[in-house]
């Protein structure tokens, strides 16, 4: 009566008690804010080259130094972050939408439909990831190289599979729960059952897996960049470039350090947040 207590508010309360998760959320928020707000605010320019000031260590004028072409590294790291984060979140959203719908339909209808749908998922799982990506890259013309779209498609294609499997499993269980049976006996049609009864009870696990998908996507993208298949400017790309200029004579430590720190910190924070969400949402934790 005094405090509202719904399944979401309870989960929220549990979440905020988890310091690591809250810290993680905070860090992600700060990093995202910096990447998106600082460049326009400070008028940072990641693209203008100036060979005369190439490879400058951090100092006045260039807080994080400059790269091989004299571009301001602070600008590049922040704008690169925009891309990494954007790809991470966008690909995740796409994989969630596709995965949830696919898994819900497969799990709810069961039988032959489920078998066929899941065989397809199994098949896609079996295809080597790199093979897929290269295939997609080849499908797009040369001019699209470095463009985020093909990368985005490739990443989305892989991540929805896990989500579909997870959701299908949950739906299979939920489908037999008494409250779902009761709804059907009361006259609820499939649409209502899926959207009002099953999906809201799947939302918890979807949130958790979704949050954990973001870092997975960011890492995949970084990996692609390392192989030279990534986008023009992202953290992964910066790391790849930095590694490319490693030599025994001069160390350009700042080129590797800044993107690595940001990448690692963001990934860790997202993982803490995801773990915290899982603990908060897990019904077994509910007494």
């Amino acid at each position, binding site marked *: 009566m005094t405090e509202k*207590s719904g*399944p979401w508010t309870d989960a929220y309360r549990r979440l905020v008690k988890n310091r690591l998760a809250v810290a993680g959320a905070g860090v992600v928020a700060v990093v995202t804010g910096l990447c998106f707000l600082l460049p326009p605010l400070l008028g940072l320019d990641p693209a203008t080259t100036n060979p005369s000031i190439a490879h400058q260590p951090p100092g006045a004028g260039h807080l994080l130094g400059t790269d091989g072409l004299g571009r301001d590294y602070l600008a590049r790291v922040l704008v690169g972050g925009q891309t990494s984060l954007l790809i991470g979140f966008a690909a995740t959203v796409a994989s969630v939408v596709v995965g949830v719908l696919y898994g819900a339909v497969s799990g709810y209808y069961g039988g032959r439909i489920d078998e066929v749908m899941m065989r397809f998922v199994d098949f896609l799982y079996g295809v080597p990831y790199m093979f897929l990506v290269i295939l997609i890259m080849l499908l797009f013309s040369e001019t699209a190289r470095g463009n985020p779209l093909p990368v985005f498609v490739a990443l989305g294609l892989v991540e929805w599979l896990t989500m579909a499997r997870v959701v299908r499993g949950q739906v299979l269980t939920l489908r037999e729960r*008494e409250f779902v049976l*009761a*709804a059907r*006996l009361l006259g609820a049609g499939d649409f209502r059952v899926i959207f009002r009864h099953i999906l*809201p009870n799947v939302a918890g696990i979807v949130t958790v897996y979704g949050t954990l998908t973001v870092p997975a996507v960011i890492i995949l993208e970084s990996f692609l960049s390392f192989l030279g298949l990534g986008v023009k400017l992202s953290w992964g790309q910066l790391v790849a470039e930095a590694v490319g200029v490693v030599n025994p004579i001069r160390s350009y430590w700042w080129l590797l350090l800044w993107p690595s720190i940001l990448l690692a910190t963001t990934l860790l924070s997202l993982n803490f947040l995801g773990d915290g969400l899982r603990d908060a949402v897990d019904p077994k934790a509910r007494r």
Partner: protein
Amino acid sequence: MTDVLLEVTNLAVHFPAVPLPVRAVDGVSFRIRRGETLALVGESGCGKSTVARAIMGLVPPTTGEIRFDGAPAPPLGETARRPLLSKLQMIFQDPDASLNPRLTIQASIAEPIEIREPGLSRTERESRVTGLMNDVGLDPSMRARYPHELSGGQRQRVCIARALAVRPELLVCDEAVSALDVSIQAQILNLLVDLRERFALSFLFITHDLRVVRHLANRVAVMYLGQIVELGPTDALFDAPRHPYTEALLAAVPSLDAARAVATRARGDIPSPSNPPSGCRFHTRCPKVFERCPKESPELFVLSDDRHCRCFLAESEAVPSVRSPSA
């Protein structure tokens, strides 16, 4: 509007399994008249829950027929089932699992109303729900709460209110009070008796607790391994059981007053429904077993006084009849 509300004839439900199918229900027949309460009693593996689910259309029968108010009752999913959804409702055993944890009490109870009368305004719906909550003894101010904030007994009341919203004629209660504490159980049983009178409901009450049966039911059907082994009016059956299994069940109910009837104890464990014993299925545990029992299966003999018994010991009293399935 016939007198017989529900008629089940030779119902069998077999679930495919390896190596042998599970014969959960194997030839069950009975009738429920309008206003009657029939209790279906038995222990694990007897098939009583499967009978309930088959009646509700949740499980398709392997063979046999289910008729409601004269018309066939197809499984859920077929369009012919739609009109029956308002006539038959079910209360489940686990009040935890019977309510969507993400919906408020108001939303859960209002759902059937929303489905049937989508044109109603929010206030009209709310007042309907208020009426239903009052009917089941719930404080309407609790409508905004979520299931986990309510006790087991309260949750079960919500389920009853939800079922009543469609104005059913037959309520199937599948161990509806088994998960509740004794004093709460009494509250819910009293409520069911009240509602039965107020709304002229018929009940199919499924339970393993014979004490509840005595209190609530007009007639009792005792099930064992997929078959009905005894059927008759409650008082008569309790005071003078004819089937050794019924005797064993009654004697096994622990109480201060129960006679020390160790001689009627059923021996050993309950066999599996995928591999029932030969002949009379109870013969492996029966304290009165004799040589005919493992060899032949007794039919459900009709006895002279509206009683049925599936035991050779009762055969001599049997009224010769065409394969009439039920009273």
